[in-house]
């Protein structure tokens, strides 16, 4: 009974939906979506960032970059860049951590055994943290 009732109600909803689609003007809802989730920190990556995303989050947390940049033991860029990328949706809350001058991320990137593009990661983290 429950199932038959559900299917009938869904069929009715489908008819209403189709009618609305035919009658009403279709407007883009993309901005509504982005505005809705801006407060939750859901900011899309750009297509270019997405292209490089696999490399950017390839960190295995070996710590060699921190050694190369002279920042070992400190919870800032670049040594825990991966952690900041993991944080993602709440990066805005940690914006102060990643503010200020960067250490030598080029040197850090050169030491990375898995080829994480640390300058790009730093730029992305800062972009997302800035909101």
């Amino acid at each position: 009974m429950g199932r038959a009732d559900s299917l009938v109600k869904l069929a009715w909803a489908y008819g209403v939906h189709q009618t609305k689609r035919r009658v009403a003007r279709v407007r883009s809802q993309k901005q509504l979506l982005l505005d809705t989730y801006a407060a939750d920190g859901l900011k899309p990556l750009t297509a270019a960032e997405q292209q490089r995303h696999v490399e950017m989050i390839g960190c295995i947390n070996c710590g060699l970059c921190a050694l190369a940049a002279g920042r070992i033991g400190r919870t800032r860029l670049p040594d825990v860049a991966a952690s900041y990328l993991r944080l993602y949706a709440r990066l805005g809350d940690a914006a102060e951590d990643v503010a200020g001058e960067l250490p030598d991320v080029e040197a850090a990137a050169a030491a990375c055994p898995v080829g994480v593009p640390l300058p790009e990661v730093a730029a992305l983290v800062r972009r997302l943290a800035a909101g």
Partner: protein
Amino acid sequence: MSQPSAHDVVIIGGGVTGAGVARDLSLRGLSVLLLEKGDYGAGTSGASSWMIHGGPRYLEFDWDTTRLSTRDAGYIVTIARNIVYRVAFVIPVMPHDKNNIERMETAMEVYDRFQPLKKSHSHVRLTTEEALEIEPGLTHDMVGAVTMEEWGVDPHRLVFANVQDAVAHGARALNHTRVTDLLKDGGAVIGVRYRTADGATSEARARVVVNAAGPWVPEVCGLAGTRVELRPAKGIHIVYPHRISNFAISCESIDGRDLLMVSHAGFTLLGTTDDDFYGDLDSVDVLADEVDYLLQGFERVFPSIRRYRPVRTTAGVRPTLFKWRSNEDELSRRYEIFDHASEGVEGFVTIAGGKLSMYRLMAEQTADAVCRKLGHQGRSATATQPLPGSERDMEPAEELAKRCRITALAAVKLQSRHGSDAEKILDDDRAGRVVCRCEPTLEAELAYAARHEQVRGLPDAFRRVGLAAGPCAGAACVIRASEVVGRELGWSASQRLEAARDFIRGSWLGRAPVLGQSGWAQEELTQGALRGLMS
């Protein structure tokens, strides 16, 4: 053997349901003993998708179930407000999916009617181009997409918050404590015999014993001489140590089941399978075929998925109620409460089936059944009484960080696990020291967990504070963590080393199925780099 303790209720099983029942009954003023043979939430609860959802799949079968499920999800979202977060899904619709874009949007329009019950937003519809703009990793082959919102939660912290609150209201809770037998008087169950973590055997008398053992329900029923039949269903997830996509993504598997790639705070869960399970419940392995099944389903909508490096897998067994014929996972999360008095076994109640999202309701109804048996008048308060850490607003992470001289990143992560209680964990001069950089986990949090949160080994620390949950999977932190926990628990040097070794060995079981060629290479690099740094 010591003198038996006496309680109104003994609960067997410290998953989310057992912990929820313990909390509910404690809040009603009953004396409760909760016994868990492993760690809290280490079984089915911990292997879930980390979701509090309303059940849009049930719309095809029973709208009342959707309403019930959504309303209860709303209660959980309210009482655990500081440890839950929104999970926004994008559902790309492919040309040959079982539901075309219009049917899919119709379902979402109907689901929108229920969404306010759990404080969620309505869906939107996106063209292919728009979907690609907000989620560039999706395939260009899709017809369009719709969105849907659910809630995420760390099930380990949710279970433990229930345990914490039960204890705060007078309950006693013991993990790593196995029930070895039930005490009987004639046909009635009058208590339990159990063995604690240190090997001591004790007895506890109770007016009612609740069997909330999840997939182990039939085993516990066997001790009482009664029977509840389940059809256990295995589910696995692949865990990526990063957020792979902006939004969570849902898609169809090759056999038409719904798969989810859920972006949580700092990692991604890809799942799940749903297969009949006949093996050993205490040793659930992940098979390479299961991993391939998930990847095959997902690469159709997210083509680069195989390029990402998974860090481990999870496997759990759902306590599905028995039903003969093909498994319809749309309704397989139903639950039932059994009062075994009807079979001549007084004082014994079983709760079986269900899902994480409805744990509170299941616990309330089980507690109601227990209260009826005891003639107790108390009413459930769990729909409105906040869980620990969600009683008050959290202070901004940056302020907490400044005041306690830790990084904002560490403050954010601490709050995600402890909500408004984060500050009291930092009441320690070691607050700023980081044990696990991937998370990051602070030494103070780990020490606090060992002192106050019944952490008895490193796997417990993984569940309580996220130790070794990140990209290095413990390679960089487990030795140090063992030192911190060992100091609190009085371990010798060799015990500390053994604990670290056991943890790494144990975690391999979940890691091996997903370490492909690059995974193994990276693993060696990590180990090598660490050896280099430490020498």
